[in-house]
Structures are given as structure tokens and as C-alpha cells.
């Protein structure tokens, strides 16, 4: 029996109230909000966070990593190998990137299932994230949110996959051309009728018929939809009750692209008991319908962070201008390409700085980061044992920098004592600088520092565990 062995999700901490968007355009006030990735986040860093949460309560090792996104930060450069490194996976794991399709998470899931069922892979990690930027002032501005999700596929699952039904459909619904900054879309009502509803109604019927199931037999249905109105229309057409539908939190987060169905999957897994059936309906240039049954193992499984705790862990953006600055729509956009960086340097220190290893002096036990050759504590030449550093700690001291350029001033720089040893200096993010102080517990998050030498320079930052 194969299926889903773990799930993790990541919702960025910032929310932009639709009221603030409305105010900026002198439009009518609208309820709800959108989840907004911080200025240092992207569709890669969010995927890292979701993958780490998935692996924290999932399999100990994976032998393949698939990454799906319509908004990956590189056009040419694979994300899955980077993801494998940051998550400190075995060097050389099989990887694959899935771009372009909003259905990418389930496409990857389907291929992961194939690989596992064929016996080619044992445990596969699928991570999906999106940070899709709507055109300022356009309809989509109230609709798109940022998030990430991850799952693992393997044997002895918490939810067994009973069937995976898929069909492709060449329909121009949402798109972003090469070189475009913003997502565009077809006429809303046309696309809802002829793109979304047609695919969902026909597809779900076919998928259910294939296994002889009824829609009413599912405890939970993850019904992906580009907007809440489309979701309501589809639920009605399929005869689904409110109890069956997993809340995708469109009102608070917006549609989170490829991550949406994974947020929904976690929502379903948080709610079901062994024996409950789950359906995932994933839309975009066609349809994937995944039918699952929760196993006995679901009773012992809990996510690293529940969806409700992530929804509560939020900071409000104080202005629409701040949002525009985060996305580089206004402001200097931080002209950071002149910052020194070096591919040679970064490659040389990949284990230390990406996998985040320190060196433990065999002579005196002092944990050094960065790794040294001669121990500053006992002056011996070690040897130094490489040691994976904890992703959490406490602030020993800090500076709140008003002159270091950042879209979110002041820039807090923290000296962090890591749990289990080692001290590190990190930029601090997702925080309220005024209340951030010595002793604050922090977690490490992988973020973008700058664009030195014309590539994305990622490294660790810290953020308060909760706000």
C-alpha cells in the first residue's frame, strides 16, 4: 500500500487587508485579506519551509525531490536540487522541477506515486510553492495569495492513494508570458464556465465512475478553484455539502497557486479519522483527481504546524505601499547586484552555510561556526567533527539597524545561541522590531539576502517563533 506519508505547509506571516488595497484605488471596501510573502521570501524559500515541516514529522530520508511552481525564482536553474541541499538530504537524490502548471503539485504527486509503485523510489518529497504577483489595481489583486506545501509519498502511508485520475485540457485561463511581471487571465465568467466548471464536473464524474464511488462517500473534498465563486458553483454542481468541503481559506489567504491543494490536503488530514475517504481536485490546464483513504496511521500523525496556528500567526502589512515595496513595484527595489558574492565561495562552503553545519572540537567540545582549523577555545588543531546545527535558538544580543538598506526597516541583526550549541549572526525577519529583544526564542528560516553578482543569494535568517 502506497500513499501520502506526511504533509507540511507554510503560510507566510504577512497579510494584506483587502481594505487597504481598496483604499489605495478608492474602490469599495472588501472583506478579507491575502497572504503576502515577505520581501526576502520567494517560491523557493517558502517551499523549503514547507518541506522542512513535512520532513520533521515524516520519513527520515527521501530518495527523490520534486518541486512544482509557476513562479520559481529562476527561469534557468533547477530548484529541486537546491531544496535537497537546504533540507540536508542525501547528496545526489533524484530531482525534478515542474513549472508552468497550476496543477503542478498533483502532477508531481502522480509521478511520485508511479515511481514508488514501480519500486524505483522508496520515499519521494513533493514541494510546491507560489508567489504570483497580480497587476496593481487589477481584479486578481484581491484573489492571489502566497504559500507553500509539501508532502511525502511512500509505503505505510497515513492516507493511501486509491486512484489517480488525470486529463489535460488546453485552455487559456491564467497565464504569464516569458518576461511578464504580472499574471493575466481570460474573461472571468467565460473561464469559469468553459474552463473550470466543465473540467471539474466532467472530470470528477469520470474519476468517481472509474472506481465506482459516489461524491457523498467522501468525508473531505479538497476542491481547488481559482476563486471562491467558482468553488461554490462547482460544489453545487457536484452536490457536495459544506461539511465535506475543506476550507481553503480563500478569504484570508487568496488562491495560493500550486500550494493550494496541499494546504487543503493538510486541512483534510487534520480532520479525518481512519477509514475516511478524501478527494483532491486539482485544476489547471486540465484536471487531476486524487482519491485517498485515511489509514490507521493517521491517528498517530500530527502536522508540525497546524493550519489554524499558521492562520493565527500573522502580522498585518501597515500599508499598500509597503506591499508594493516588498514586491519591488515601487522603491529602490534594493539595488543589490553590486554586493560582493562569489559562486566559488558559496560552493566551497555549501555544507557549512546551506546545510548549516558547525565544527565540534574533539579536544574541548566547543562548537564553532563558521568551522575553524584551530580551536579558539583550547588552541588545539581539533580534529573538528562536522555537526548539523539546530534550526532554533535564543537571541543573545542584537542591533536594530536604521541605515542598512532594507524594504522593512529597521533591519534587526541578531546574535543567536543555537539550541544544542553554536552561535551565529543572522538577519532577523518577520518580526516586530519594537518588541524583539534579548532572550526572544527564534527559528531559522532560509531567505534571500541580496542579488550580489546577479544571482539570488540565499542564506539563513531568524524570526521569532511566533508573533
Amino acid at each position, binding site marked *: 500500500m502506497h500513499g501520502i506519508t506526511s504533509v507540511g505547509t507554510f503560510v507566510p506571516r504577512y497579510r494584506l487587508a483587502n481594505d487597504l488595497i481598496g483604499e489605495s484605488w478608492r474602490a469599495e471596501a472588501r472583506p478579507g485579506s491575502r497572504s503576502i510573502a515577505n520581501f526576502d521570501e520567494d517560491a523557493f524559500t517558502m517551499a523549503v519551509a514547507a518541506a522542512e515541516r513535512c520532513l520533521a514529522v515524516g520519513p527520515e530520508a527521501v530518495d527523490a525531490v520534486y518541486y512544482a511552481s509557476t513562479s520559481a525564482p529562476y527561469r534557468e536553474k533547477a530548484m529541486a536540487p537546491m531544496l535537497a541541499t537546504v533540507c540536508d538530504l542525501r547528496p545526489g537524490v533524484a530531482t525534478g522541477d515542474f513549472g508552468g502548471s497550476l496543477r503542478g503539485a498533483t502532477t508531481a504527486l502522480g509521478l511520485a506515486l508511479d515511481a514508488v509503485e514501480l519500486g524505483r523510489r522508496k520515499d519521494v518529497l513533493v514541494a510546491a510553492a507560489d508567489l504570483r504577483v497580480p497587476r496593481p489595481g487589477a481584479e486578481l489583486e484581491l484573489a492571489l495569495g502566497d504559500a507553500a506545501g509539501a508532502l511525502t509519498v511512500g509505503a505505510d502511508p497515513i492516507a493511501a492513494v486509491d486512484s489517480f485520475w488525470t486529463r489535460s485540457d488546453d485552455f487559456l485561463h491564467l497565464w504569464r508570458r516569458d518576461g511578464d511581471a504580472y499574471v493575466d487571465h481570460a474573461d472571468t465568467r467565460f473561464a469559469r464556465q468553459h474552463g473550470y466548471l466543465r473540467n471539474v464536473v466532467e472530470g470528477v464524474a469520470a474519476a468517481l465512475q472509474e472506481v465506482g464511488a459516489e461524491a457523498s462517500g467522501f468525508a473531505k473534498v479538497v476542491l481547488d478553484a481559482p476563486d471562491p465563486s467558482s468553488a461554490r458553483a462547482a460544489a453545487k454542481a457536484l452536490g457536495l455539502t459544506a461539511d465535506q468541503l475543506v476550507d481553503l481559506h480563500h478569504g484570508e489567504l487568496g488562491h495560493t497557486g500550486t500550494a493550494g491543494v496541499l494546504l487543503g490536503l493538510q486541512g483534510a488530514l487534520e480532520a479525518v479519522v481512519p477509514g475516511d475517504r478524501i478527494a483532491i481536485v486539482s485544476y489547471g490546464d486540465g484536471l487531476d483527481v486524487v482519491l485517498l483513504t485515511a489509514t490507521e496511521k493517521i491517528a498517530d500523525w500530527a502536522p508540525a504546524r497546524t493550519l489554524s496556528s499558521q492562520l493565527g500567526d500573522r502580522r498585518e502589512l501597515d500599508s499598500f505601499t509597503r506591499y508594493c515595496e516588498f514586491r519591488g513595484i515601487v522603491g529602490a527595489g534594493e539595488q543589490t547586484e553590486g554586493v560582493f*558574492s562569489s559562486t566559488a565561495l558559496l560552493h566551497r562552503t555549501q555544507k557549512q552555510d546551506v546545510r548549516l553545519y558547525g565544527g565540534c572540537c574533539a579536544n574541548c567540545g566547543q562548537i564553532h561556526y563558521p568551522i575553524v582549523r584551530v580551536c579558539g577555545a583550547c588552541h588545539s588543531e581539533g580534529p573538528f567533527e562536522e555537526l548539523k546545527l539546530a534550526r532554533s535558538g535564543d537571541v543573545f544580543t542584537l542591533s536594530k539597524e536604521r*541605515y542598512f538598506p532594507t524594504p522593512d526597516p529597521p533591519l534587526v541583526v541578531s546574535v543567536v545561541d543555537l539550541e544544542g550549541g553554536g*552561535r551565529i549572526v543572522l*538577519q532577523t525577519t518577520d518580526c516586530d522590531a519594537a518588541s524583539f529583544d534579548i532572550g526572544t526564542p527564534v527559528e531559522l528560516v532560509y531567505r534571500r539576502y541580496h542579488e550580489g553578482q546577479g544571482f539570488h543569494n540565499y542564506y539563513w535568517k531568524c524570526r521569532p517563533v511566533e508573533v
Partner: protein
Amino acid sequence: MESWGGKIAIIGAGCTRFGENFDQSYDDMAVDATLDAVRDANIGLADIDGAWLSTAFPDAGVWKGRSGMDLAEPLALWDIPVTRVSNYCASAGDALRNACMALLSGAHDCVLALGVEKLRDRSPQGSLVAMQVETGHPFYQKGFTAPGTFSVQAARHFHDNGTGREDLAEISAKNHDHGALNPKAHYRSPMSAEQVLAAPMVADPLTVLDCCPTTDGAAAVILVRLEDAPKHESAGPPVVIRGQGFSVSAGWDSPFYDPEYRFGGFRASRVAGETAYREAEISDPREEIDLAEVHDCFSVSELMAYSDLGFVEPGESGEWVRSGATRLGGEVPFNTSGGLLSCGHPVGATGLRMLYQLTQQLRGTAGEMQVEGARVGLAHNIGGPGAVAAVTILEAT
């Protein structure tokens, strides 16, 4: 190791005005400070048989100060060894040390130590802030500005010793009051502690008035072996270097990444201070030292220097400054020149500017800044994130 305390004398000291010297080039300031010192020593340029140049950041300007050539060229001081010394903000203390070593070896008889820094051909944010934004390791410590590397000290000092922003403001106000008396200082306005507290934040808890300004300037001394001092009829009596300690006790990264380091003090300052006291045979600095020029690049550095140099315990430092003990007329006046907070900090020149100021004090020619009966003075010059320190003890003859 043999002590060299008491064997070297300053016979001449010179200094330009410190400030935004928009009318002066690097070369102009190098020439002015050197000629000022040469005249004070009553020698000729041709008497100098070796020279050490201290400049910390040649990249901030037109790449002057990258080598000894940049001292030799403007002064046409050809055919003698000239060495550029670079040890961050303690470069001048290091230039002085190397000049002394050359005299002690007997290879040289009359040497020059010159510090020059030209920062204001660029905006402060275009030079020093840009340096920390654009250069250095892509990630390690990325986000700190120079004030930030000291605000982490302040945050921890407050936390561990019960000190606070008011104590820092007291130091800054005191040094601005002193600076108002110094004709060569960058800032010449008295300042209240309230003004310091109300000033804009730079790196919490440091306001802009807790930070030294970005300044141009140069300072120089002429040194000989003490026994040779009488050969030169210098303008004022020679001043003896009774001892110097110089210590590199951390690196650029290690103080921040060392899990054992508690912040709120600098090992380099403590080690350099202990060495200097041993050389100068000082057992109770608070009793035996009449005045001190310490490296108050940020107000918190002076607070830390009180305890690092053995005047008080860390927990007493706030009370000590609030009592007025370190003001002009107090128990041990600190930074009667106005310190770096008022004079400014042309990086490579600062440590030698301190010696210029102490030379005046110990000769009794410091004017309104004069500490009555001053016989023994201390100069404290630190570099990097408190990683390098030079402590020099001078005595009047």
C-alpha cells in the same frame, strides 16, 4: 621579553583641524600634520630616517594610503623606508608601535608616525555604510553597520550591568562639552544628555549623537630615543612613552560567533591595558593616571573602556560617569579633547591625534582643555569590532 617602557620620547606632535575638510586633499592633510610635527620638534624633514603611515580605508577616497608611497610622495621624503600600517581603527596605535620598535632596534634615529584619513570626498553613506553593504562576506554579519557592531555591545551591557541609554547620553554630552573647548574638533557645540537621547536612532540603542561623525584629518608625531631627545631643541619638553600594550584578541567574525563571549567588554582592551600598565609600572590606574583619551567611536565604547582599563567594575561604570568623575575637573578626566564623538574619527589618524592631545596636556599647553598638573596620560585606540587594541601610557618630563 624585555620592557621598552620609558626608552622612547615624542619630541614633536602635529595635527590638522578635524572636520569636513572639503578644501583639503589627502596630500594636503599629510603635509600639514607632518610639517606641524616637524616644526614642533624643531627638526627638518631631512632628519627623518624612517616613517610609518597609518590609513585604514584607502578605498573610501582616491585610493590614497594604500602604501608607504602615499606619505613619501606629498612630502618628497625620498630614499628612506616608509611603511603603510593597516589595523582597522587601531592603525595609528600600530604605526606608533612599529616606529618605536625601529628606534629600539637602533636601525633608525628619528622617525615619523603619520595617520591620515580622507573620508568626506564621498558621502558618509557612500563610504562607510556602502562598505558594509557591498563588501565583505556575502552573508556573515551582513546587516551590521559600524554602529551596529557596537550597539550589540550596548544591548548586552545594559542587560548584564543595569546600565542604560542615560549613561551613554551622559558620556556623549560630556565629550561634546569638552569638544566645544577644542579648536581642532569637528563638533564644537556643547550638548545635553536630553539632546542625545532625543536624537534620531542609528542602531538602537545608539542615536546619531552616540556615534562619531565621518571626518577628515591627519595627525603626526616625531619620535626619538629618550637619550637623544636633548639633541633636538624641540618647542616643548619631550614626552616619554612609559609603556605600550598592543593586542589582537579576536578577528572580524570571532567575537560575534564565539559562544563563550559575553559582550559588554573587549579582551583586546583588557590585555593591551594590562601590558601597558606592566611596562609603565602602574598598579592602580585610577590613582596614577591623570587623564585618558579613549576610543569613544560610540559612547558605549567609552563606557566599556572604564572597566576594560581597570578604572571601575562594569557594574559601576554608569554611576562613575554620572558622578562627573570623567569630566574635566573630575577625578580622572576622559576625552578632554572631545574624543572621537566631537573630534570625529578620521580612522587612521585617530590614535595619533590622541597622542598629539596628550602631548599638549603633559606639556601644560592644552589651553581651556588643560587638566591641572597632568603628569601621566593614557591613550586607548581600538580597531575592528573591538578585536585590536593599543594602550599607550605617556609621561611628562
